[in-house]
């Protein structure tokens, strides 16, 4: 802001203005905007296909058999989840940050070249991520792909985005950092830390790795990562957008600076602590579960602080919300955020989460966040940006009005049937008869939700139509806009000069005849200390970093550092080589997208699935596969012949033959692919190094690889003989069944949950 004595500015001011001519770097913002719209369409289309596959599992039945592994529900589901976050939402974040940061700092980006490189590298990484996920997951909800890609994400985020952001802030001409910038800093720093921490794993071969932690420890680390990445990559920067785009659109001052300070610190500090609320009733240490619950509950008001600040800023100008579709999108997005954050807090309560966990309710909740809060905010932001980035008559207002209504109907059709399906599942899973017996089988719950899944597919189609309208708007801006976008030349005082022009006074009491103490208290109560912090980006960043690190350390260290945090069970043994191969198939096919692997201590659950799970049972699970959705039944106690190996053989070949109306895709390609032991030796060597008690002693000219390959083949023969003995085939399409991949997967399934009832054998003398 220029000093108000512009009539006759002193020479120093004139010089400073002359020396500080600049333009905003908006070309890169345009690129990210286009990418955002493109990825939004791709992600929703993938979501549609995933959802359709639930209603029509045989959708791709006629595809060539060698393509079948790549078109299962799990693949589309993982793609949709990851692209929604790393492609759509992340690009929206970059768009908004690059645009608003320059304005809020009154300075051009520190490095345009870095920003363009960021754009290209990020899109390349997203494509690499997508390809890797289609080939096979490594067992995580987010990322969980080849190592170099994960390292790539960390490097690009920190060195290409974070560095540019911090340097731009340091170069700013504004004296203070506005509240949006605080949120950007928190996001950049925390996501950077999370992405780096995600790379710390144990290398195996060139591309692969084995997770450093096993079982419960891995689950806790994963929940910390998942919760952190979703919150800090998306919600935190989007709260920054609320503080920028809402006051800009409505052209009114922000409601409360004080509230924004409390909002920022409380939400940042509490969010990082509530990851374990995703794991209630699993065998994690109970204090961790309680920590997640209490922090999640306290998070209610901090979340609503954003809503209050946004809505109260608009209060009194509701007419504008009616007139401007950009503002309307944002306000509705903010209201949805109010709902979903209240829901998050409620669902962090153990007893409530127990009811809806693993049901579609949680999916509907997540989609209300992604498509409602994030989706609507992004659309609002884009409609607000379009006429500013493409100075030409664009953003046909009737088209954007139409988009608003289409998007709203689509969202309702996706989310409401999801909530209903979740409620039906929760009811059917837990309903006990007068005699305390389960009323329904798992498949009765599945049949009951089928109509809702159809409605949801319809919702995806409608929401997608809305995005096409957005795409048309952007396209028309691109085509009709000037071929070269000239940015207006601006000038502003340098920060030093601005300081000279109107110096900062700490307290109005300074120099007055009062005690020194009094002026200090006055300063504190007027939040002058925070005001000072807003002028010190480096200190601000260090403070956030310290807080995030300390809080993460306090919750993770007691569990990750001590084996005693998870009581050991003597009878639990490492997987056999064949089971390891089978487990890798289970992980890479993404079975955890539909099957959980933990029986919670709930009466109805133990009636449906068997004895409750104990932490020590998962001591050799790297990575953990507890899963978070039960489209199919829990598998924690499926081993030991609950269903015979023949049953599994036939079920994998064509599930509806064994369970009519099953929605599981056929895994016939496992029957037709040869059992391979490529990485087995390497894997066992790495696992042994990590402390898994494999016997690595070798005879004569044996290698680790062929020693364990022999063991695996022996077990494959045993299982094949079992299947044949039970009336199964000897060979499948010309291959002996003992040589097929399916045998390994069956070996793994038959192992699940059986160790606990195995008699303890004394450890062999070394």
């Amino acid at each position, binding site marked *: 802001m220029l000093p108000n004595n512009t009539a006759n500015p002193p020479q120093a001011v004139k010089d400073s203005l002359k020396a500080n001519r600049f333009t905003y770097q908006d070309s890169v913002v345009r690129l990210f905007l286009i990418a955002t719209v493109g990825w939004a369409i791709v992600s929703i289309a993938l979501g549609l296909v995933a959802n359709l596959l639930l209603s029509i599992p045989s959708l791709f039945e006629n595809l060539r058999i060698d393509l079948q592994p790549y078109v299962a529900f799990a693949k589309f589901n993982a793609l949709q989840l990851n692209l929604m976050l790393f492609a759509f939402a992340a690009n929206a974040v970059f768009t908004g940050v690059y645009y608003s940061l320059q304005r809020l700092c009154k300075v051009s980006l520190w490095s345009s070249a870095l920003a363009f490189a960021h754009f290209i590298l990020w899109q390349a990484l997203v494509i690499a991520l997508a390809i890797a996920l289609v080939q096979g997951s490594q067992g995580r909800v987010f990322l969980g792909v080849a190592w170099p890609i994960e390292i790539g994400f960390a490097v690009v985020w920190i060195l290409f985005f974070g560095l540019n952001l911090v340097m731009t802030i340091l170069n700013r001409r504004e004296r203070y950092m506005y509240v949006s910038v605080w949120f950007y800093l928190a996001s950049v720093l925390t996501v950077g830390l999370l992405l780096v921490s995600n790379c710390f794993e144990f290398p195996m071969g060139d591309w692969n790795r084995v997770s450093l932690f096993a079982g419960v420890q891995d689950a806790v680390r994963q929940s910390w990562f998942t919760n952190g990445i979703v919150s800090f990559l998306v919600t935190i920067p989007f709260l920054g957008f609320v503080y920028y785009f809402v006051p800009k659109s409505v052209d009114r*001052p922000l409601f409360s600076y*004080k509230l924004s300070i409390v909002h920022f610190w409380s939400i940042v500090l509490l969010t990082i602590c509530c990851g374990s609320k995703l794991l209630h009733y699993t065998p994690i240490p109970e204090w961790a579960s309680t920590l997640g619950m209490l922090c999640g*509950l306290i998070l209610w008001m901090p979340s609503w602080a954003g809503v*209050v600040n946004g809505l109260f800023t608009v209060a009194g100008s509701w007419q504008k919300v009616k007139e401007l579709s950009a503002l309307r999108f944002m306000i509705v997005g903010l209201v949805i955020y109010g709902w979903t954050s209240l829901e998050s807090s409620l669902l962090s309560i153990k007893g409530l989460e127990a009811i809806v966990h693993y049901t579609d309710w949680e999916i509907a909740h997540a989609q209300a966040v992604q498509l409602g809060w994030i989706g609507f905010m992004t659309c609002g932001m884009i409609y607000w940006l379009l006429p500013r980035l493409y100075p030409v008559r664009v953003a046909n207002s009737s088209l954007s009005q139409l988009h608003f209504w289409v998007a709203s109907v689509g969202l309702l059709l996706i989310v409401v049937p999801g909530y209903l399906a979740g409620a039906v599942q929760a009811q059917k899973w837990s309903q006990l*008869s007068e005699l305390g017996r389960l009323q329904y089988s798992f498949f009765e719950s599945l049949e009951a939700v089928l109509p809702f899944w159809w409605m949801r597919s319809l919702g995806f189609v409608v929401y997608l139509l809305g995005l096409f309208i957005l795409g048309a708007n952007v396209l028309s801006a691109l085509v009709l806009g000037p071929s070269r976008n000239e940015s207006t030349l601006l000038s502003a005082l340098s920060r030093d000069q601005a300081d000279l022009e109107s110096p900062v006074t700490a307290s109005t009491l300074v120099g007055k005849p009062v005690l020194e103490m009094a002026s200090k208290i006055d300063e504190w109560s007027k939040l002058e200390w925070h005001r000072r912090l807003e002028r010190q980006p480096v200190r601000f960043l260090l403070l956030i970093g310290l807080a995030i690190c300390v809080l993460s350390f306090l919750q993770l260290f007691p569990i990750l550092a001590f084996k005693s945090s998870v009581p050991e069970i003597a009878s639990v043994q490492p997987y056999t080589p064949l089971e390891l191969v089978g487990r890798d198939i289970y992980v890479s096919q993404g079975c955890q997208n539909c099957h959980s692997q933990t029986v919670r*201590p709930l*009466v109805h659950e133990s009636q449906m699935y068997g004895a409750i799970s104990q932490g020590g049972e998962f001591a050799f699970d790297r990575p953990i596969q507890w899963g978070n959705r039960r489209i199919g039944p829990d598998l924690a106690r499926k081993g030991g012949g609950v269903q*015979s190996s023949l049953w599994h053989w036939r079920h994998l070949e064509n599930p509806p033959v064994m369970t009519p109306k099953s929605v599981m895709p056929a895994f016939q390609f496992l029957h037709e692919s040869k059992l391979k032991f490529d990485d087995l030796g390497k894997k066992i060597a790495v696992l042994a190094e990590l402390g898994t008690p494999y016997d690595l002693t070798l005879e004569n000219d044996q290698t680790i690889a062929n020693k364990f390959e022999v063991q695996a083949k022996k077990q494959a023969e045993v299982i094949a003989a079992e299947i044949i003995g039970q009336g199964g085939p000897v060979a499948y399409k010309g291959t002996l069944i003992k040589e097929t991949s399916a045998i390994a997967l069956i070996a793994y399934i038959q192992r699940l949950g059986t160790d606990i009832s195995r008699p303890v054998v004394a450890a062999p003398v070394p």
Partner: protein
Amino acid sequence: MMQNKIPALTSDYDGIQEYTNPIPRWWKWLFVGTIAIAPLYVLCFHSGAPGATLVEQFQAAMDENTRKQYKEIGDLVGDEPTMVDYLQKQKWIAVGASIFKANCASCHGPEGGGNVGPNLCDDSYKHIKQLPDILKIVNEGAGAGAMPAWGKRLAHPNDAVLVSVYVASLRGSKPQNAKGPDGSPIAAWPKP
């Protein structure tokens, strides 16, 4: 709606100004309230009081559930007279049905018509000549693991008896898509 009486801060950012309105009172109190719950919760559930942990709560609920289920009948003896007797008791056959649905339907079909496991509704049986044989097969399994041994898996010995009674009660029903007969025909169940 809130009155913006408090003056704005002097600086502005890209045209955005900020009021320094106080934090709404209801917001403050709810925030403090949720924080206040935390120590109370920890005190109630983490002070080492017996029965407070999730697993202990579960054990209590399970005991209660077992009482609810079997208080009336005590421990059943799996002999022929008992099974014949229970074949008349619809209430307990229904309990057997729910055990069947959860554990047996995947191989024997939802209504016992058979699938990879044999049809249980016709007059032909494998390994079974009289009623207690059903219980024996349920408990010990058969067919080289094709039929698993359920004795250790079911939560209560009564479960095995009641599911066997339910299976016996299926005889003579005609579910859709039933398999052909397995094994050989046997004499009708004894009448009470």
